Structures are given as C-alpha cells and as structure tokens.
C-alpha cells in the first residue's frame, strides 16, 4: 500500500460513480412516467397492491412469524462473534497456543449457545414437523373419481 490516500480516493470516486448512476436511473424513471409517457392515472383498483385480483384482505403491515425475529436476534449474536474473532485472526500467530485455547473456549461457549437455541426450537418452522401430523395423502379429502 504505497499511498492509502490515493486508494481511498479511488474508492470514493467509484462509490460516487455508482451512487450517481443509481440516482440518475431513479430520476430517469420518474421523468419518463411524469413527463414523457404521462401514463400515470390513479384508480382505486389499479393502485391496490397485487393480491391475485380479489379485494384486499386487510393491510399488509401486519404481524408475521416471530421466528424471523429470533433469527435476527441470533444473527446479531453471531455477527458480533465474527467481529470479536477478527482481532484474533489478525494476531493469531503472535498469540500462539494460548490464544488458540482462549478462542476454542470462546467458540465452544457459542456452539453451546447455538445448540441450546436449536434445541429450544429456533428453526422449528411449522407445527406439522411433529410426528403425529397426518401424511399429506390422508389429509386430503377424497377426490371425486366418477365425473
């Protein structure tokens, strides 16, 4: 790294180019609709979000599965773990065996946490995973054979 200022400058120019391109595209899209095409007409049915063509059933800003939150929380935990491991990865040769043992304990505690989370049902996505759920063929009503 001869000149870190130059590298940062290069990165900055590149980022600005990309941002500029993205914003230009967005501006162009609005311009086309508003000025060139003038196709923007508002009607109740047209403005509604897509729901297979039937009348909307309530708002989309509704509750969704709590498991997504659990995954997000676990992600924060493990991402912080990755961040904690970066300093070790930078210095692991200097730290030697002692550092390795420390990291092994750290990783072991986290692995234990992961195991506990999984045991408590972090990834149990549906109730039908239990063994007494009916097989799909049994659950289906008898289809009409004689039409």
């Amino acid at each position, binding site marked *: *790294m001869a*000149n*870190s*200022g*130059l*590298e*940062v*400058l*290069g*990165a900055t*120019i*590149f*980022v600005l*180019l*990309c941002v500029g*391109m*993205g914003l230009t*595209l*967005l501006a*162009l*899209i609005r311009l*086309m*609709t508003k000025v060139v*095409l003038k196709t*923007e007409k*508002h009607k*109740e049915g047209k*403005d*509604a*979000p*897509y*729901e297979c063509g039937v009348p909307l059933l309530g708002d*989309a*800003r*509704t509750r*969704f599965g709590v498991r*997504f939150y659990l*995954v*997000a929380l676990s*992600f924060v935990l*493990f*991402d912080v*773990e*990755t961040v904690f*491991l*970066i300093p070790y*990865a930078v210095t*692991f*040769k200097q730290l*030697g065996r002692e550092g*390795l043992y420390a*990291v092994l304990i750290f*990783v072991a505690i986290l*692995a234990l946490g*992961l195991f506990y989370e*999984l045991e408590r049902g972090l*990834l149990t*996505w*549906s109730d039908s*995973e239990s063994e007494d759920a009916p097989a799909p063929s049994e659950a289906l009503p008898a289809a009409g054979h004689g039409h």
Partner: protein
Amino acid sequence: MLSLGLDASAVGWKLLPVLLVFGAVLAVVPLLVYLERKVCAWIQNRVGPNRVGLLGPDGLAQGVLGFSGGGKRILGGLLQPLADAIKLISKEDFIPAQADKFLFSLAPFFALLPPFLTFVVVPVGADLTFGGTTVPLIVADLGVGMLWVLSVSSLAAYGVQLGGWASNSKFSLLGGVRATAQMISYEITMGLVLLSVFMHYDSLSLREIVQAQATYFDPLLGRLAANGLGSWGVWHQPLAALLFVICAFAENNRLPFDMPECEAELVGGYHTEYSSMKFGMFFQGEYIAMLAMGAVISTLFFGGWHYPGYASVAAASPNLAALISLAVLGAKVMIFVLFQMWVRWTLPRFRYDQVMELGWKVLIPLALVNLVVTALVNL
C-alpha cells in the same frame, strides 16, 4: 485535495482502473441477461431469444437498412437486452397506494449499489506500466479489503427488506422477511469463512491474496515456479471454498436459494409491486451480484488474475501480461457466472425450513470447525 499529498498524475492514472471496472461491469451485465436466457434455453432444449439480432430477418439491419443478410439469423437475440431495456424504461413507474414512496424508490437503489461496490477491492489485473508510472489495476487496494467485501455484501439485505416492506403488499412483505432472514443467516457463515481465508493468507488485502497464489507451472521454463497451481486457495481451504460458494448462492438469492421470490408461493416476492426500470434495477442488481461473487470466488480461491506463464510474459512485456491477466480474470469470472446459471436451471428449490436448517445446523458449525482447524494448521 492537496493536504492528502496526492499529485495530479497519480490521481489521473487512478481514474483508469476506476473507469475500467465501472465500464466493464456495466457493459457485461446486458450480455449476462442474454446469456442466462440462452443457457436456460439450451438446458431446457428450447431456442431462446433469437429474433432481436443484428443480421438476418427481423434483425436490426433489416429494420433500419432493409438488409436481410440472406435470410440467415446470425447471433439472433443478441440485442434482446437492449429491447428489454427500452421496454422497461417506457413502462409506467407504478407505486401502489399506501406504499412508503421514499423507501419504495430507495429499495432498487440499494439492490443495485452493493454488488457494484464489491468490485472496489477486487484486483482485476496485473500492474500496467506507462513510461515509468505503475498503474495497479485495482480500484482501491484497501488494507481491509475482505472486511469491505463482507460489509458491502451485507448491505444487499436492505434492498430486499426495504422493497418488501415499502410495497405494502403481503407477497412483498413475506418475500422481504424471508430474504432478510436467509441472507443474514448465510452472512454469518460467509464472515467466518472469510476469516479463515484471511488467517490462511495472513492478509486482508485481496491484492496480496492474489500475489500469495501467484506460483504456477511455467510452461516456458518447463518447471514449477514455487509450488504450482497448488498455491490456489481452493486446495488450501477446500471447505472454505465450498462454504463460500454455497453462501454466494444464498446471498444472491439464486436458485436453489431463491426463497424470497419463489414464483409458485410469493408471485414475485419482494419485487411483486415493482414495474418499469425499478424492476430492472433489481434485475440488474442480481446479475451484478453474480459477477461480483464470481470475481470474489476466483480472487480468493482460484488465483485471481494470475495465469501460468505470467512471469515469462511479464519479463518480455509487462503491459501485454497485464492485458492477458484481465482476460484471464474475465474468463474465470464467466466460468463461475455460468456455473451459477447452470445450477439455477438444474436444481429445484429448497423448502424454507430446509434453507434455514442448512444454514444454522450445517454451515455455521462447519465454518467454525474450519476456522479452528485453520488456526491450528497455520499456528
């Protein structure tokens, strides 16, 4: 500017790799769109786009000049991406009622930007030399290169999450939430994998990582220079390479991990409500992400721009060697892009719970084991 201690000519030469990388990515993306449709057609035994070409009936030459080229279609369909772009840009930019207008417009921007930014730290070729000035073909040789890759690729989750939430559509919301959960789950593995790769090379700079893999079989010398192709990262970190490729698929939301937009369940997923070029931006973002992942995979595990015989060519003509190195990296990236397409049109989709189980129960433990083993081996 002056306080940074930069001289004008150095800044001027820096523009060369910046514009080269930016232009190359922009130029290749439409070709990838065409290629994906052709590859898909070959795999499914169809013809694919074959009309909007240059020569032949229905071609541009006939439309503009009245020249039919003897009735044979040559490279038919090559202009399909152009036709697609014209179609997309001339569609109405639809924003659903009750959508968050600002976030709705911001989301495609965030889908397009992060994969582009990955290229900042990827060395695309050997150094060019112009009259004593050495121009490294890399946008920015940052000392924290690999952390840049990690942080930029995690930004991509914002695009899908914002798009899914802002649309005020149930399909979009479900697609966005699924995508976010999937991407953050696989990001942990990706971070751990990058850490072990970093420990192996003892450097975070992608430029130094390529140089570390720079030993090869030299056909002109007729012997191995250092330890041959064996210096490719994939031989030293095979598990890391495998995990990284899997995570790349998951991060790009490509099949078999295309939960966020699985058509059969969620219509279009997070971009159900998007039309016009805003949809096009999501679409482009996906192809740039494929390119970016191909570039990172080939740089970390497959020698980057290096090729057998580089030293001999460089001794004769450094600039020629640099140009070949550009082509070599391009070829390696294309191989991985084609691999991603091949997988997409071959494998069926996972179920969502299978995706999450693979991520948390298999990949994260494997990545942790890989990290510890790397530490043990390199200590």
